[in-house]
């Protein structure tokens, strides 16, 4: 590493990456067996599987840095205030349109972020990003195609996709928020400043949403509080209740 960075800042950064993939992977896995068509069941399971695999890498490294913790300890034994995912990934699935719109809005950020992280000054971060970016390139292609197909499909599918975009848009801004943790991470060359990804993101999202004949809301208002843990949505607690149940009910058991 070129510039030393406090373990705490690095840990926060890793939790932000790993909690995003963990919580979104969980949400996507809720679709299992309930998708509109068999190919979508397969694709959703595949996306969830990739995201859980990435979680194992990000939280695995976070646990090492925290000292002797496993990815499972972090996933299953923290409470809501310790989670560092953006609010976007914890909002409920809604209909298939909202799920895919959320996936697209996240994939677009994720693919740009991972591309930058491949040149991270921290080799471990760069290695995870290199592996994950291949998977995420496919996620983005698929979610982008589906958003275009449904946005420019029937009148009903168009209306539903516009509603999904209107609902989710206020959760987009948080992915580009910066704080002191980011400042330290940027100074150490570990990751880019989130705000610096916005231009590329806007260009990408605008291109796809235009093809989808959808209108991006004008307001840039952003709900925040997930990536710094200050204030999650009410939904996260319920998600954790389900996800963590066995580990909480039978402490110390090996599975």
């Amino acid at each position, binding site marked *: 590493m070129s510039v030393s960075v406090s373990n705490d800042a690095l840990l926060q950064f890793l939790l932000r990456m790993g909690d995003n993939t963990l919580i979104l992977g969980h949400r996507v896995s*809720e679709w299992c067996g*309930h998708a509109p068509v*068999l190919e979508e069941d397969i694709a959703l399971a595949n996306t969830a599987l990739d995201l859980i695999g990435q979680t194992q890498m990000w939280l695995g490294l976070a646990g090492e840095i925290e000292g002797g913790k496993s990815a499972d300890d972090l996933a299953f034994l923290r409470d809501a205030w310790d989670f560092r995912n953006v609010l976007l990934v914890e909002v409920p699935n809604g209909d298939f349109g909202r799920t895919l719109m959320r996936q697209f809005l996240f994939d677009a950020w994720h693919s740009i972020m991972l591309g930058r992280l491949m040149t991270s000054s921290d080799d471990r971060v760069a290695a995870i990003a290199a592996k994950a970016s291949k998977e995420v390139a496919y996620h983005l292609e698929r979610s982008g195609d589906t958003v275009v197909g*449904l946005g420019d*499909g029937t009148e009903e599918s168009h209306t539903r996709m516009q509603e999904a975009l209107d609902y989710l848009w206020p959760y987009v801004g948080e992915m580009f928020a910066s704080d002191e943790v980011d400042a330290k991470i940027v100074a150490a060359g570990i990751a880019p400043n989130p705000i610096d990804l916005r231009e590329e993101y806007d260009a990408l999202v605008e291109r796809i949403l235009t093809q989808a004949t959808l209108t991006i809301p004008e307001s840039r208002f952003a709900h925040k509080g997930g990536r710094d843990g200050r204030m999650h949505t009410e939904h996260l607690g319920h998600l954790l209740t389900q996800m963590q149940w066995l580990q909480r009910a*039978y402490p110390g058991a090996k599975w």
Partner: protein
Amino acid sequence: MYAQMVKSEASNDDPEKLAEFQARIDADIKIEPKDWMPQGYRKTLIRQIGQHAHSEIVGQLPEGNWITRAPTLERKAILLAKVQDEAGHGLYLYCAAETLGVSRDELTEMLLDGRMKYSSIFNYPTLNWADIGAVGWLVDGAAIMNQVPLQRTSFGPYSRAMIRICKEESFHQRQGYDAIRKMAEGTPEQKKMAQDAMNRFWYPSLMMFGPSDKESVHSAQSMAWKIKINTNDELRQKFVDQTVPQAEYLGLTIPDPDLKWNEERGHYDFSEPDWSEFFDVIKGNGPCNVDRLAARNKAWDDGKWVRDGLLAHARKKKAGNLAAE
């Protein structure tokens, strides 16, 4: 995940063509979609392959029930991968059925309105985490017993789908066994979960082979056509013989006081499942029949706008491409 054998359909075909067809089957020449085949052969295969495909699809539900509660990231990933494989099996099987002249949508509608069945095993609930191990170990184990011989079945596309499916199923069975082993070797509560899963899944797993068919005329026809290779009883015995030592190794008790090794036969003697329960479940009275079918219907109905939307977009794109040419 599972091929439940169906009864063969009667045929009313030209005897000369039938004899020629039978000669090909006897010579182990695969029947391909464009070849002549008896109506009964075609209908029996559509029912059997369709039912197998439906079982893969409905089978996502009892396992999906635990994906969001899987106790570790690794177990969650393994379960996701397994359910994804099963949806993939459904896809190859629907494709194999389509070669016989029935569309996936037609088959789906027949599942949703109850005209076609899926394996009854999926009408049982998954109540604790060890059930996920038991489903892999016992249910996939029983399914493999049925499916391994089907790799040699006479209809080419079905046989080829089965070869691919069997590879993945063997892997699932090992993963299931590993999951339940971990629990059988774990805390007293985990052992209790493992035994509870064993108690509930043992007899339903034996039922997966179907009632005794020694005297069945339908089975004889299916066996002559090599749609079916072994009798239900042969496969059930093989499953019991394979599973008892595994259960002993795990320290789990099989819920059958009459289970014992028969030196003379060289096989285990075991109690028959309660066949009245089996017929009840087939009639729709299993613990989950109504909910499973309702979940599939809801997924299909809720997804209509998505399928319509994507189709409309594909048509617009095609029209746009044609206009540009």
